[in-house]
């Protein structure tokens, strides 16, 4: 199963042109290269849902371990691309509160797994245009952790469109660090 981000409901996004053709094309390419079996996909879905349902109603703090900081690396290690695809499906279905999704994105950037780098990278790029500033910020931080210089033009573009000054500074800073 592919990541299928092309099915994103544009109405849930900040505008209907949220993803340019290149990004969408890259998403498709990355999902093709990491195609998974239907069984893996289902397993990853179930495990991810179990994990997210077990996340306690807590405030996430930077630098403090939580259920997700342990679970996301474990899920990606076990299911690889299927885990990333499962996360993308939940994201697109808006089935996860944005604060939890933000935490997931930060950990997607931190996971050390070469095989899923492409899928994680393009998913994080996609999330830079979420309608929630917390999600946009988390996507930028995830990209900072991934340390992939290809994110720079996307970060700069989003920084230029960002209306929240503090978040704009974050996007610019990540772009500058990656581009240095």
């Amino acid at each position, binding site marked *: 199963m592919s990541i299928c981000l092309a099915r994103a409901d544009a109405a849930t996004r900040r505008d209907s042109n949220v993803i340019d053709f290149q990004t969408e094309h890259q998403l498709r390419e990355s999902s093709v290269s990491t195609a998974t079996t239907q069984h893996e996909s289902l397993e990853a879905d179930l495990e991810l849902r179990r994990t997210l349902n077990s996340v306690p109603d807590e405030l996430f703090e*930077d630098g*403090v*371990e939580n259920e997700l900081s342990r679970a996301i690396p474990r899920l990606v290690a076990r299911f690889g691309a299927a885990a990333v695809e499962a996360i993308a499906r939940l994201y697109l279905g808006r089935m996860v509160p944005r604060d939890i999704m933000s935490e997931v994105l930060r950990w997607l950037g931190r996971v050390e797994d070469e095989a899923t780098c492409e899928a994680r990278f393009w998913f994080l790029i996609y999330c830079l245009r979420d309608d929630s*500033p917390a999600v946009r910020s*988390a996507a930028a931080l995830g990209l900072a*952790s991934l340390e992939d210089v290809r994110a720079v033009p996307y970060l700069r573009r989003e920084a230029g469109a960002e209306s929240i000054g503090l*978040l704009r500074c*974050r996007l610019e800073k990540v772009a500058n660090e990656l581009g240095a």
Partner: protein
Amino acid sequence: MAPLLRKVRHNRWYAALSSRGQPLPADPVGDLGTTDNSLSVWQVLTNDTNLEDIVVAIAATLDYLTNIDVVLVDEQPIRHLGIKVEPTQGRTPLRRATGYHRHLVQLRAQTLLEIAEVIRNQGDFRDFSEKEVRQLLARYISEGSLNPSELKDRVKEHLESRNLIPPSPGA
């Protein structure tokens, strides 16, 4: 008067900063968690001369290496709210920073909202990226100011994986 620093998450303040003059959204209160009616802050010296010490002091207590968002706010408007600022020993492996720690004490719930308003209107929001925090920790360790054995395992592993500190004995 020197500013006080509080570790926060900037994303909790986006809506508040975009709506100055309107009622305060609830999320910023999540950055003002108290223990025993006290709020943990750090005293920043003039010209930020101890700012890096404070950031390292905070980073050295974390479970994993990450960016650190902070906000600086002058002590004067905080005191104008009738809040007492008391020196307390900071719990951090960075010994030289322990004296910079403060507690805002005897707080009431209403006072937290007032603090949040002061921060919203006067706060100086800054962030230290993961890369900056990593470099700071590595520098303090190489200078001998910070003992890596006192860091959490995940932080040590992160620094070791980038050859910023030697592997732990027995690793």
